[in-house]
């Protein structure tokens, strides 16, 4: 991978710097979402395949439903917890 020299960085004009900062910010939030998806997939894959062997590479409609439900109920739980803690602090 090419390395970028320090002096070249200092010669960047103002608008390019701004663009780069913006780019980093948007990539960071994209990365955060991806990391969440990794964690949710890990968790829901375990839950939906618990107590049964992997017999096919595909997903049937039940498995797909299980994954979607798993994610949505997890997020519901997250909201509930936040609300409960907000309520108790008042």
């Amino acid at each position, binding site marked *: *991978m*090419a390395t*970028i020299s320090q002096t*070249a*960085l200092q*010669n*960047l*004009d103002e608008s*390019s710097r701004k*663009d*780069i900062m913006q*780019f*980093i910010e948007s*990539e960071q939030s*994209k*990365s955060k*979402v*991806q*990391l*969440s*998806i*990794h964690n*949710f*997939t*890990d968790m*829901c*894959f*375990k839950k*939906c*395949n618990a107590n049964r*062997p*992997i*017999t*096919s*590479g*595909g*997903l049937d409609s039940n*498995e*797909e439903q299980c*994954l*979607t439900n798993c*994610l*949505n109920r997890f*997020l519901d739980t997250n909201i509930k917890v936040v609300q409960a803690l907000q309520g108790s602090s008042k």
Partner: protein
Amino acid sequence: MALFGSTSIGSTSSANSASKSQQLKQEIQDQIAQELAVANATELVSKITENCFEKCIVNPSVALNAQEDYCVNQCLEKYMRSWNVISKAYITRIQQSSAEK
């Protein structure tokens, strides 16, 4: 050659540095995107390995046998499909909650 060169030297030097900045900016952004893509792929590989090892290799022996090999392949495919399902559902959910606000 001389015709082009003689008149435009002064004006191209600032245009040149602007295009150099532009080029450097692109390089930096490409490099950042590339590194994040590698990090994302690494995370996926590690999660799939963990999950499929757990699922498919119950009693580790001297080598992967045919059954384990088959299981790992199926598991890998299932995991990636699952990733896509979760990704779609999560993004739908994010869009819903931002639409409510």
